[in-house]
């Protein structure tokens, strides 16, 4: 019988059937993101950076550095072309993501993605986190698959892509847009496109980059969204409620292959619903996407 893992910042003893020393030596991981999600994030990240560097000189055209940067890139027409192509790729990525969700939820009947929908627990978690920050509570709130901050991050991007994407299309094709929409739409699009971009870039640089890179507990880099995998230890710390559910559906440790150095995952089990696909492990074998409900 497993001794439950001790969770929380101050509780460091890690007990398990293999003994704490061995459990920490042999890093175990859980797959958290599938290939589609990793690709979607990569496309979002790349196009975001390109759009930022081709869009901000236009938003802040009065600055000398903007004028210098545009001429360095080959003139305004080149900058606009790059910006529009990247924007269309980002919109395509958004469509890809929505289609992926529809396929996963409606066709595959895997409802894990619905965890992203905000619930009253998220408000309670935010309140408890505030109490924790103010040292009115000794423990952080326990999160499921997505914390309130991750949900905020996701829906903020959802909103941002909608606003920036639609206004960007209007600015790209203003003659077509005004065949159906009133002329003031062009001015609204111009304002919201640039200002929402400022919001998005501000959030990504100041908050997302912190949580993903600069936070002392992930520095230099949280690779989960790129590799798709998160160590069991981190999983238990960051998403204890989901981790507890996953543990309940794990097979016994004895059934795992012996003598596997380095990372291992929990092997496939029939008790899970059908998976999206599998991610090759370091040994080259296909291993279950256990974290994917």
């Amino acid at each position: 019988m497993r001794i439950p893992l001790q969770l929380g910042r101050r509780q460091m003893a890690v007990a398990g059937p293999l003994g704490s020393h061995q459990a920490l030596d042999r890093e175990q991981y859980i797959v958290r993101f599938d290939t589609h999600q990793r690709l979607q994030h990569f496309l979002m990240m790349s196009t975001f950076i390109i759009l930022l560097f081709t869009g901000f000189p236009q938003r802040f055209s009065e600055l000398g550095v903007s004028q210098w940067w545009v001429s360095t890139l080959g003139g305004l027409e080149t900058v606009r072309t790059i910006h529009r192509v990247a924007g269309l790729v980002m919109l395509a990525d958004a469509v890809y993501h929505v289609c992926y969700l529809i396929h996963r939820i409606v066709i595959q009947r895997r409802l894990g993605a619905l965890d992203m929908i905000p619930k009253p627990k998220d408000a309670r978690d935010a309140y408890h986190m505030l109490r924790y920050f103010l040292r009115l509570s000794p423990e952080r709130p326990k999160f499921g698959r997505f914390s309130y901050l991750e949900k905020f991050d996701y829906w903020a991007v959802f909103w941002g892509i909608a606003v920036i994407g639609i206004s960007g299309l209007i600015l790209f094709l203003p003659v077509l847009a005004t065949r159906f929409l009133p002329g003031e739409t062009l001015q609204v699009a111009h304002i919201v496109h640039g200002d929402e971009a400022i919001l998005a870039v501000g959030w990504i640089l100041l908050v997302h980059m912190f949580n993903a890179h600069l936070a002392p507990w992930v520095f230099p880099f949280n690779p989960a969204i790129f590799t798709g995998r998160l160590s069991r230890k981190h999983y238990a710390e960051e998403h204890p409620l989901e981790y507890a559910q996953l543990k309940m559906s794990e097979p016994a440790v004895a059934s795992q292959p012996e003598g596997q150095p380095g990372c291992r995952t929990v092997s496939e089990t029939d008790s899970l619903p059908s998976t999206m696909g599998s991610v090759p492990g370091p040994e080259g074998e296909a291993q279950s996407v256990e974290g994917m409900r």
Partner: protein
Amino acid sequence: MTVIGWSSRTPASLAGAEPLASAGDVVSEGVPAPSADGPELPSNDFCLICHSQPGLSVTLSDGEEQPLDAVDPEALSSSVHGELSCLSCHPTQSTLPHPKLTHMGKHLTIDTDSDVPLCSSCHEHEYEAYLDSVHGTVTKLEDDRAPNCIDCHTTHSVQPVQEWTKSDRAERCGQCHTGANTKFADGALGHRAPSRGWFTVTYFSGQFLIVLTAAVLAFGILHVEFDVLRWIVGKVQNGKKGSTKR
């Protein structure tokens, strides 16, 4: 006829010539207000003897030949600038032979080194508003396709904007934006910033975005700060025995 303009500023003396008329002055057609010190300056009729003719060109000081548009005397006199002397805007050309122009600036600078168009000397507010517009962005980033004042307003036949019809505007936009309709033309801000009474939806969209940005970034930054501070406090309390993870 009193000259009515958007600005009450005096036409600038770009090359040091005396201002010849002020907006609001009643000026007889073509006759500038005489300068107290200088010689009598030519009337518009005099300039138009040559400049109403097509086919003129000017050789710049670097040898480049620049064609000149003919000025239609009737269009000029019926325009909003009809009461102004030619020299109000072209002060360096008061003598014959005309002094050499060094360049014809794309912003209608006409023999000045200024990057600021001639028109802005009287219409400064409109020019500032133009710079904030999408067309202004193109100008500031030095794309030659940017429309300048005369692309929309013409040179010597400027009409009051209130007299433009919707189809006039659409046609003007359509010179660059092929297929533009009247709704497209309605999207032009008209050199005025959005306000509660002008492009109201635009104005409140901008205000909303400001509030949203401030609120969201404030939340995010505070969350990050508290997170780090709480982690530091935890580390201090736990000492080296504490986890490096949260």
